[in-house]
């Protein structure tokens, strides 16, 4: 089979920095090739360079052949003609890729207007056709709506529709499912598979091996700008040669079930908790009991009310009905001033660690603040305490004088964990703590949380949309849908025999490593 895209010895640098170094691979017509790697591995830069979007500061060497055109030496004009018509692009930020002020239909019609001579009416028909082909329900209605009226999954479908509007021969998809729920991800992957079957070649960029293994026939593993391994999907997954690839495969969550510690006394008890926002019921009569040393996983898609449940548990929202007790004492039913003294006993870790830090403060100040209330009155937090705290979460003491924003995502989350354990809490509410992290970093952070739980007898309320992650960490499980708990039980029991159809759908949608 002839190659549609041939990348040879591609290097991309930004000033003194080399982002991509000597990368070669090719994509046969109608095939799907995936580039896998963590953030900063150069996979997105590679994709953008192929599109001629590396930016003015970039120095590009090597060659990129598309059909018989050399893209590295093409004029911007020629590249513009190719982009959209022959090469479609689905960018990482599906949620922001669409113009918020224009309707989805307009957005998709744009490439038709630029590259074809269709009349407005024909364009309109083609837009509806396209939306249908990407599985958009009610395409007529959706075409006239603006992006903010669409859910994340529908927006991603709209982006894909605009990328395939002109039947490109190559579709470049950069992390097309990263921001999406499991069932939505499954839908998008099915859609991409359909496109591939219709003959569109796909270059898939992802950090998620499980996603990649469903679609790609070839895998290119990148790390720090270099290709460390490449080959057929089967070969790479079954017989990984490079240690980094083995690490990535081992890090895919969902492998080992959690072995919990024996349950102690109840620490948090929620009874019939309900929360409404306007007429919408976000959390509907939810009850649960969290025991010492245990992890209660809460799984659901976005909008299922799991984050609201976390906020209710932290008493950041007041329930409209029902109540939550902490160590058998009223927690949500009392005014804030009666809670403040007990707040150090229940901590929190957030999905976006960085925004939970005061941007002016260094790691040292953040942690000293967190240690403050736990330390006896009038005693200053010592350097030794700070050092032992950061070392406990696997960081080096040299992060102390730095600002969190210069740290990596994994390091930021470790600082957040250090802050959460500093006041010696009994419970930590973890709201999607690893969702923003690369898989291998995710595994490290989960291992850290597990170790801390054993050491301090912590209880976790663990909110996530990722079933693989939840299986790895939780003893018990709540499955939420539209604010209601549809299924609950011991984690392994739920995984072995899901009773509710929604749980079954969720489980079926989990991307698994297919070898």
């Amino acid at each position: 089979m002839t190659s549609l895209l041939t990348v040879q010895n591609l290097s991309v640098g930004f000033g003194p920095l080399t982002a991509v170094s000597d990368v070669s691979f090719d994509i046969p017509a109608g095939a799907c090739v995936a580039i896998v790697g963590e953030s900063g591995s150069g996979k997105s830069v590679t994709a953008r360079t192929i599109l001629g979007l590396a930016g003015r500061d970039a120095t590009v060497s090597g060659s990129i052949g598309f059909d018989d055109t050399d893209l590295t030496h093409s004029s911007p004009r020629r590249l513009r003609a190719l982009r959209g018509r022959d090469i479609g692009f689905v960018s990482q930020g599906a949620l922001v890729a669409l113009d918020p002020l224009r309707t989805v239909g307009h957005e998709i019609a744009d490439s038709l207007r630029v590259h074809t001579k269709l009349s407005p009416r024909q364009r309109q028909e083609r837009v509806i056709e396209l939306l249908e082909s990407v599985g958009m329900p009610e395409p007529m209605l959706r075409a006239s709506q603006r992006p903010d009226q669409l859910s994340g999954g529908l927006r991603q479908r709209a982006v894909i529709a605009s990328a395939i509007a002109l039947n490109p021969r190559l579709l470049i998809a950069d992390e097309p499912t990263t921001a999406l729920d499991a069932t939505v991800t499954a839908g998008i992957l099915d859609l991409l598979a359909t496109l591939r079957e219709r003959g569109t070649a796909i270059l898939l960029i992802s950090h998620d091996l499980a996603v990649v293994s469903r679609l790609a026939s070839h895998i290119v593993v990148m790390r720090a700008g270099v290709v460390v391994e490449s080959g057929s999907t089967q070969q790479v997954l079954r017989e990984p040669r490079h240690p980094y690839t083995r690490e990535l495969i081992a890090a895919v969550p969902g492998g080992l079930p959690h072995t919990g510690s024996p349950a102690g006394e109840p620490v948090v008890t929620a009874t019939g908790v309900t929360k409404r926002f306007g007429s919408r019921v976000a959390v509907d009569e939810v009850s649960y009991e969290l025991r010492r040393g245990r992890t209660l996983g809460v799984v659901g898609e976005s909008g299922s009310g799991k984050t609201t449940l976390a906020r209710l548990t932290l008493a950041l929202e007041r329930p409209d009905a029902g109540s939550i007790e902490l160590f058998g004492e009223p927690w949500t039913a009392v005014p804030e001033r009666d809670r403040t003294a007990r707040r150090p006993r229940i901590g929190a870790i957030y999905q976006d660690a960085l925004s939970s830090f005061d941007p002016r403060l260094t790691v040292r100040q953040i942690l000293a603040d967190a240690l403050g209330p736990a330390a006896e009155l009038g005693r200053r937090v010592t350097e030794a305490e700070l050092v032992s705290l950061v070392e406990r979460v696997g960081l080096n003491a040299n992060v102390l004088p730095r600002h969190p924003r210069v740290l990596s995502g994994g390091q930021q989350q470790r600082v957040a964990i250090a802050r959460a354990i500093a006041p010696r809490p009994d419970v930590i509410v973890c709201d999607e703590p690893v969702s923003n992290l690369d898989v291998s970093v995710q595994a490290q952070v989960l291992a850290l949380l597990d170790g801390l739980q054993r050491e301090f007898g912590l209880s976790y309320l663990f909110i996530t949309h990722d079933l693989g992650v939840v299986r790895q960490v939780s003893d018990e499980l709540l499955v939420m849908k539209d604010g209601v708990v549809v299924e609950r039980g011991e984690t392994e029991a739920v995984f072995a025999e899901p009773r509710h159809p929604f749980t079954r759908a969720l489980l079926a949608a989990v991307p698994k490593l297919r070898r």
Partner: protein
Amino acid sequence: MRRPSVVVSLAIVLFIVIAAIAPNLLAPGDPLAIHPGDSFLPPSLGHPFGTDESGRDVYTRIIHGAGASVLIGITATAIGLGLAIVFGLLAGLGPRWLDFGTTRFLEVLFAFPGLLFALLFIVIYGPGVLTSTIAVGLATAPGYGRIIRSRVLVVRRAPYLEASLVLGRGRFFRVTRHLLPNVAGSLFVLATLGIGQSIVWASSLSYLGLGAVPPAAEWGAMLSAGRTYISSFWWLTFFPGLFIVLTAAATTLLGRGLQERVRS
């Protein structure tokens, strides 16, 4: 901050600050000493900016006038920002009715052109350096107040304030440790931008004879005194005017430079 505009404005601001603190370093003469024989001399080596109708050296007067102008500018900005912080915090942190009331009040004040508002104040309390300074401060407060309120509203909802609450920190700690410093960051920029503006306004009031009055060496007053001779002796108005423009431009450019730096 390698941009030439920022470097130049920094140099100008530095020069004016030195003139304000230690005018004798730059111009050792007496700004009020009259030499009737030397009146209306054009700029020369001996009198770089010329002399005025009483033979006073214009350069010396401008350097000595910097103190008054800068002091008026800083005091007025401080008054404006101080009031604005009170209003902004009341509106941003208080209950909803207080926010509503304060915001509407600021909007009413905002509806007056600033200078008109200052004039109104002077009409009531009489002209003079102090009243004109207070007047300028009052006139600038509503604008700052609105900015501070919106900043407080943003910071108040920031996840890190919630994180501090979750850690069990009281309201006082959260406001003083997190909210105020994060609001203050943008205030610093605002203040730098505001000083130049206040100097222009205070000079305008002096020019109208409502602030400092001749023979005081204040830029606006000098401008006003030189107005009579504008067609024959240009240097009497040109140099005070130049310094007002330079100060305003330099502080504004510096403020913008700071703003960009804060943003990145």
